[in-house]
């Protein structure tokens, strides 16, 4: 599939904190190394920040929001029903204000904890009559194609701009999803012994120049939530949080998580839940 291309530039992997430990066996002297003069560190990031406001102010993500709005309101699918008149994102049928920041949540009709994308897919299948397999075949955008679900998620997310994240963690089923998600984030396996936490479990780390948010803190978790769905400058494609989770697993050298599955929903519950109380700014723009 093509979305793998998007990450192709991405020089990822980890040679880890091994050397940080005092070596026990041979007598290497772990004298503190002096870094070369410049922390060229984040010169790029700092410079980019200056242009951040302008970039966010005119974000091509809005084009996908527009398309999503049309698709949300149009009667579609074998059942010829509009999502606007059939889909309940937890705030009542067709209501999208603030829905995105209050997911994942538990939906009794599906008996599942669902993130926004999973829920909209569920509506497309259950209400509009689309086939899940068809949606799951090409769930993410590439340079020549943007799936409807991506537009729809972007549209819905746009209606939670400047609202606080409020995942209902007190709800027992959501709480359980959170706890399982936390364990998924800590699970080390694969050829490189990586877990999500290998990169995202401590403050102040980066891969190359890329900052790695610490997902166990509210601020860190929020930076993993902020800007998704996001317009990716590389390739100029609109990508969702579901995609982001999958790409993390790719870089973790894991097999692929199934689209709109429990595993992804639980991981998102952990991550977004940790960001509760933080303000979501809407669809973003990503490097």
């Amino acid at each position, binding site marked *: 599939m093509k979305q793998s291309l998007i*990450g192709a530039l991405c020089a990822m992997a*980890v040679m880890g*904190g*091994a050397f940080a430990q005092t070596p026990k*066996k041979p007598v290497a002297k772990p004298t503190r190394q002096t870094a070369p003069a410049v922390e060229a560190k984040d010169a790029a990031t700092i410079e980019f920040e200056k242009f951040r406001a302008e970039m966010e102010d005119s974000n091509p993500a809005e084009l996908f929001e527009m398309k999503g709005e049309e698709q949300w309101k149009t009667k579609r699918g074998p059942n010829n029903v509009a999502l606007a008149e059939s889909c309940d994102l937890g705030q009542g049928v067709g209501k999208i204000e603030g829905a995105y920041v209050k997911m994942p949540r538990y939906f009794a009709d599906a008996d599942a904890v669902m993130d926004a994308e999973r829920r909209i897919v569920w509506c497309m299948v259950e209400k509009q009559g689309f086939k899940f397999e068809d949606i799951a075949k090409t769930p993410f955008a590439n340079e020549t194609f943007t799936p409807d679900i991506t537009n729809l998620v972007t549209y819905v997310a746009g209606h939670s701009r400047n609202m606080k994240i409020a995942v209902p963690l007190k709800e027992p089923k959501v709480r359980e999803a959170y706890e399982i998600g936390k364990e998924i984030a800590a699970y080390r396996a694969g050829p490189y012994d990586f877990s999500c936490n290998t990169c995202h479990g401590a403050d102040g*780390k980066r*891969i190359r120049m890329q900052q790695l948010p610490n997902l166990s803190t509210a601020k860190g978790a929020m930076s993993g939530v902020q800007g998704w769905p996001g317009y990716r400058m590389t390739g100029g494609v609109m990508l969702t949080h579901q995609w982001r989770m999958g790409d993390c697993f*790719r870089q973790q050298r894991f097999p*692929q998580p199934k689209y709109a599955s429990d595993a992804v929903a639980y991981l998102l519950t952990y991550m977004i839940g940790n960001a509760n109380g933080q303000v979501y700014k809407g669809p973003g723009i990503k490097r």
Partner: protein
Amino acid sequence: MTKNILLAAMATLLLIALPAAAEGDYRAKAIAVIKKDFQPRGQASIDRLAEDGLQAVCNRTGNKPPKSLAERMEADQLAGVRYPADGKLMGDWKEGEKLAQSGRGFTWSDDPGLPVGGNCYNCHQISPKETSFGTVGPSLYQFGKLRGTSAEIQKYTYSRIYNSKSYNLCSEMPRFGHIGALKEKQIKDLVALLLDPESPVNK
């Protein structure tokens, strides 16, 4: 192979030794969900989801295994390091630098036929000429200048790249030699990058 048996035995021991209740059953549920909800793609086969003995110990202890167990298992990891038959541990630092730059390898989108990179700059500062470096691991700038190039240091450096878990059981660094990601010559070149007085790392 003795090593594997030993590992398995230790992991089992650990299961008995650690209070099961402390984990809740979320970990078990998480593993079940992972097994159910992942699919193979490209070279990333489903068997990658299974923990080996070391991973299981680290996962179960939050990467803080009891000291005695960690030491025994580290010794076992170290015993598995295969050193070059010719006894030479330092190769060509220039080749090492190229290898350190490459982040390729083992993802479902990587061509399994292509050589795997060292991934070093992703996490470490190394040569001062490369300013785009990660900080998951410590800076390795002046690694050799600070330590010299004695036989002992060369052996340490080689084994640490080969299997970092020989020194720190739950290190975040992959076991590059142990899993066969990096071959003997490549590890030698990386040792040279870190230790050779001519390498920019030590200038």
